[in-house]
């Protein structure tokens, strides 16, 4: 478990104090994939780097598995860092070393295993990330996705209990992003590893995270389970992220809907409800007519969801709304 207790961070630039993170408390449970989303400068990167103290906090405590990381001396900190893997946006692989030597580096630095034990572990790790045939290559010979896989293998080499991902997919194309995220989800499931990732893309959160915290101007403005935050965003920043992901322009949509008669409602289905033939049934029973103005059916991690915006006309509208609310569906009346 990772606990931030009133942690804050200010930078001194030219004698002036610039706040990067306002006092923040946050708990990340073991085995979770926890996402921090925010625009650049929101403080998410600072937050991530505070966990392994690549950034020193200006105040507050960070407790990992009952131990106060902020109180560690240099030796304790090095020991702790060996148990925390980290991957980076630009991979940060050593160009002068082969793929195998890059993956072996944390083990070589720790100096606990023999050469042959290290070689064995490296072979295992490269097989896990699907790069067993590339051991003798240099990073420059690999594609972006392959480089990040090397980064992941390297981060996992010391069997860490926490993996920190610093915009790990931001430099990758959408297809490669999907495969890297899939690998992260797999690792989280099989190794029971806690993953903390930062991103500015809601899509990344939606695909792999269990919980999410939205950051803006150095503080967490909203947090919760991904489904909760994604389907019912409260804070303007969160709403903006969700709209970016859905590629919806709220203003444009409002203009479009202005010409539509009747009431407008948004229904959100989750899990099995997504596939139930609710609309047709309700329309038949209450005599209302509906047209679908906007809609999306997708998945949040492994759970399917649907979100439909409907214009409802005629019939017994109140009864229809009651039926929607009674079913396992979240309804929002927009007009």
């Amino acid at each position, binding site marked *: 478990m990772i606990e931030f207790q009133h942690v804050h961070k200010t930078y001194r630039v030219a004698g002036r104090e610039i706040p990067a993170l306002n006092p923040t408390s946050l708990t990340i449970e073991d085995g979770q994939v926890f996402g921090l989303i925010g625009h650049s400068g929101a403080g998410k990167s600072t937050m991530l780097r505070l966990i392994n103290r690549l950034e020193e906090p200006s105040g507050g405590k960070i407790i990992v598995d009952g131990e106060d990381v902020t109180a560690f001396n240099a030796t304790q900190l090095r020991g702790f*860092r060996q148990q925390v893997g980290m991957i980076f946006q*630009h991979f*940060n692989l050593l160009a002068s070393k082969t793929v195998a030597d890059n993956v072996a580096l*944390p083990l070589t630095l720790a100096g606990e295993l023999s050469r042959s034990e290290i070689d064995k572990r490296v072979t295992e790790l490269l097989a896990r990330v699907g790069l067993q045939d590339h051991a003798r290559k240099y990073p420059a010979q690999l594609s972006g996705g392959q480089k990040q896989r090397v980064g992941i293998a390297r981060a996992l080499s010391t069997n860490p209990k926490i993996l*920190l991902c610093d915009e790990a997919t931001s430099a990758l194309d959408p297809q490669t992003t999907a495969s890297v995220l899939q690998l992260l989800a797999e690792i989280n499931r099989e190794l029971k590893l806690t993953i903390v990732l930062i991103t500015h893309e809601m899509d990344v959160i939606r695909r792999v995270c269990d919980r999410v915290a939205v950051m803006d101007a150095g503080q967490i403005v909203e947090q919760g389970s991904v489904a909760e935050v994604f389907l019912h965003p409260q804070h303007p920043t969160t709403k903006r992220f969700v709209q970016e992901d859905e590629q919806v322009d709220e203003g444009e949509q409002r203009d479009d809907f202005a010409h539509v008669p009747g009431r407008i409602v948004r229904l959100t289905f989750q899990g099995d409800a997504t596939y139930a033939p609710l609309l047709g049934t309700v329309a038949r029973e209450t005599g209302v007519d509906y047209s679908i103005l906007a809609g999306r059916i997708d998945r949040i991690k492994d759970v399917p969801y649907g979100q439909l915006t409907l214009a409802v006309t005629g019939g017994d509208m109140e009864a229809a709304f009651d039926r929607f609310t009674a079913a396992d569906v979240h309804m929002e009346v927009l007009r």
Partner: protein
Amino acid sequence: MDALNFFANVDWAEIWLATIDTMIMLFGSLFFTVLLGLPLGVLLFLCGPRQMFEQKGVYALLSLIVNILRSLPFIILLIVMIPFTVLITGTSLGVAGAIPPLVVGATPFFARLVETALREVDRGIIEATQSMGATTRQIITNALLPEARPGIFAAITVTAITLVSYTAMAGVVGAGGLGDLAIRFGYQRFQTDVMVVTVVMLLVLVQVLQSLGDKLVVHFSRK
């Protein structure tokens, strides 16, 4: 005028000995320059602005010393160094007398090049190595130096070539070598043929050093 007549003044045995002297001066001084300059370059880098051991005072002091030595014309350094040279090698003459001033002249230059090469290493690499729990010594030996290796080989090449021209100047204080021949015979006795031969020998030396250096840089670039 046939070719043999043109080289009438050239004593090939002498040229050969001078070439050997130049090589000894060059590689002797290059060895000590790298030995002293590499740690100095690493120190300059580490203490530099926004680096791991940022030490404004130490950096300013080291920088000042390096700059003074670099701005001093080599010919002056050669003469100023004489008492010190005698102290270390027992003589201010010949190959042994030339090496200490050559090293003192080239080390600050080389250290600056090393500092620049280290700065070229992506900060992300340092951060990644730190995140693995590496000590500062491990970061230097396992990440910084291997990553900067192409740059360091380029620095050694440039330094070696600079040393070639310095050895020629060292001829002034009786250091021997090709430069000495060029001055004493080619210049002072107007033996153009000796001048041509020594210059060609120096040119060949520089060419060989440069292509050797380039090969090493390419080999270690891994790109």
